[in-house]
């Protein structure tokens, strides 16, 4: 018996030593020492690509693409999707792992600042040469570190069926009879307020979907809506090529168009499906569902929201009734204002993974945007308006919102650039959002919101 015990314990000790030795090996295999293993890794042709996806709404499509790509080329693509609002968090912990993401995305110049130690120079890639407008890329000096892969637009999405119903309504008190006439804030306001008064006759709960101000659900206001007044403010600054570079150079802002923000924000929260005091519990999904179910006539969002509208069960909105309206806020000359068009999605390749992985990742992206299979996915399933010249005119997404954006870009209007790429930090946006929630709930006056915006810009830029 004793002998058996001894043998057993010897075995255990040996297995422990073995485990310890193995884990030790794995421990030293961090990115700093992978150079030594490069030869060995290069010999393997099948490098696994790890793509950390930013857009949860199209996560399933990426899974399909990964499967197809593997079937076609034998290269395995691992797609991980960060939950809404947690991309930076996820990226930070994923990139420290030994199996780090090989493809990730940055949100523009500010995001590049945070990740510049990890972004590979993509100047010599074919992907960069395919860009139809190379000035869109994130660059520093000679290097190209972020390549935009989608052009998006946002504005006020409206349900034309409800609008037609309103224009035909006997009890309406405005003289406006078609959406063509709504081309500034005053007409929008009169229509919206009259619609709200007639909400019951129109069969809606409120004109606007709820203004989601729950934690992590505020980006439509503290980023997208905030872009409108700040775009005008930066445009007023002389001596810059465009509003975004003016914004990047601004150490302080005045929030001089703050009242315009208040105009439209008040309109949103006071003519909505719920009372302003209840907004702290609302999510973006809630608002999109309200719109899809026909409980509201308008909602501020971008073309990426098409899936969310389309996939709500019990959806009553017809594709041909979905239209875009620019976000009017009472700025002089806004009759010529178009939708807000731009991008905050830039591909970056991890510079700290092995060369073979980097090349495999670039090859995957090039496949996605040049091969017929890849392009079909991009236009039909991902619904991207891709900014690459490999796409022909007939290879544009067919969903109603993307078509609307292309139509608006053709019109005689000026698109609002996405200047929020110049916002100093996530913290700035979140302080802005928090202040908006306090304002909506009636706990704080508008002056407080303005001062939070101005102060927080200054302190965050100084960091």
């Amino acid at each position: 018996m004793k002998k058996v015990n001894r043998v057993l314990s010897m075995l255990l000790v040996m297995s422990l030593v073995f485990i310890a030795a193995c884990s030790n090996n794995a421990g030293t295999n961090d990115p700093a020492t992978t150079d030594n293993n490069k030869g060995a890794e290069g010999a393997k042709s099948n490098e696994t690509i790890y793509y950390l996806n930013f857009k949860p709404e199209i996560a399933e499509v990426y899974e399909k693409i990964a499967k197809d790509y593997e079937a076609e080329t034998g290269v395995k693509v691992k797609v991980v999707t960060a939950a809404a609002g947690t991309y930076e968090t996820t990226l930070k912990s994923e990139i420290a792992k030994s199996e780090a993401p090989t493809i990730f995305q940055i949100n523009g110049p500010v995001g590049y600042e945070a990740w510049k130690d990890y972004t590979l120079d993509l100047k010599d890639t074919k992907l960069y040469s395919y860009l139809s407008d190379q000035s869109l890329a994130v660059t520093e000096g000679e290097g190209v570190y972020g390549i935009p892969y989608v052009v998006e637009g946002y504005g006020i999405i409206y349900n034309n069926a409800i609008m037609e119903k309103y224009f035909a309504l006997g009890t309406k008190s405005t003289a406006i009879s078609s959406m063509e006439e709504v081309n500034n804030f005053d007409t929008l306001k009169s229509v919206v307020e009259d619609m709200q008064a007639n909400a019951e006759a129109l069969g809606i709960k409120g004109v606007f979907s709820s203004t989601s101000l729950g934690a992590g659900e505020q980006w439509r206001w503290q980023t997208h809506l905030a872009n409108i007044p700040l775009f005008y403010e930066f445009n007023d600054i002389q001596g810059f090529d465009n509003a975004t570079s003016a914004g990047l150079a601004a150490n302080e802002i005045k929030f001089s168009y703050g009242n315009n923000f208040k105009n439209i924000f008040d309109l949103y929260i006071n003519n909505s499906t719920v009372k302003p005091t209840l907004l702290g519990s609302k999510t973006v999904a809630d608002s999109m569902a309200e719109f899809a179910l026909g409980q509201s006539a308008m909602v501020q969002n971008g073309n990426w929201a098409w899936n969310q509208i389309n996939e709500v069960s019990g959806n009553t909105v017809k594709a041909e009734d979905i239209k875009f309206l620019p976000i009017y806020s009472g700025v002089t000359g806004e009759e010529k204002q178009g939708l807000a068009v731009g991008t905050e999605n830039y591909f970056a390749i991890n510079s700290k993974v092995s060369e073979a992985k980097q090349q495999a990742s670039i090859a995957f992206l090039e496949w996605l945007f040049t091969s017929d299979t890849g392009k079909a996915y991009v236009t039909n399933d991902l619904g991207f308006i891709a900014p690459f010249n490999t796409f022909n005119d007939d290879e544009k997404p067919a969903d109603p919102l993307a078509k609307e954006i292309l139509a608006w870009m053709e019109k005689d209007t000026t698109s609002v650039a996405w200047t929020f790429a110049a916002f100093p930090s996530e913290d700035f946006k979140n302080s802005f959002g928090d202040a908006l929630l306090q304002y909506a709930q009636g706990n704080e006056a508008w002056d407080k919101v303005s001062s939070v915006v101005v102060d927080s810009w200054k302190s965050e830029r100084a960091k």
Partner: protein
Amino acid sequence: MQKMIQKYFALFALPTLIAFTLAFVVPFIMGIYLSFTQFTTVNDATWVGLDNYIKAFSDKDFLNALWFTARFTIVSVVLINVFAFLIALLLTKKVLGTNVFRTIFFMPNLIGGIVLGYIWQLIFNGILYKFDVTLTNDPAYGFWGLVILMNWQLIGYMMIIYIAGIQNVPKEQLEAAKIDGATNWVILRKIILPLVMPSITICLFLSISNSFKLFDQNLALTAGAPSKQTAMLALDIFNTFYGKTGFEGVGQAKAVMFFLMVGIIVIVQLAITRRKEIEN
């Protein structure tokens, strides 16, 4: 036998020691080191000295979170222990269905914090909707929401510990006291309380450290809304680490201070309550 244990000490202790070193000691030392550095990911860091600590203390969100956490801990520790003890007293009496009640009271403890947070958020908002407000309207709602949630979750667990303590009180002493004519109050004060002191030590330790370190419930219930006014320390550390670029080191510095605070508080508490324990 003694010899046998000595001989195989390494064999029996090693697995635990290795696990403890890998999962605790190494990250802990790394964490302390990182609190003196500026870093984006944990593998590359540059030394900045005490800079992070200075930044942490000049951060008013951190001080605000500290104050909120302190208030929360005091209120919830008192309430949890009072209720848990009362329920334990009740359920050690010969009442019909004590076992069923014990099980039911214990069950909330088996549900994860995030899930609990969202469930209670629905409940609270459901009630508050009737008054046209939500949890985010006033930090006080969030505060009491967290207190209620924490009570609901921890009372059952503490109750079990108290029940074990109360059941250990010798029947002879209780009987003798009754024969001497002691009232129920006197029996509770002079016999039961001193004898369950070990349970009180454990329960206070668990409820203080759990309340101080609360994270999941906080994140799910309010996420700090409105304006970070209901963010507790752990959530503030998380937000600093992940929410602000270039502030990872500051978050780490906050975490080290957080560890020291929790450590000091519970050691003081253990010393005080230990002294009151008497040999049974």
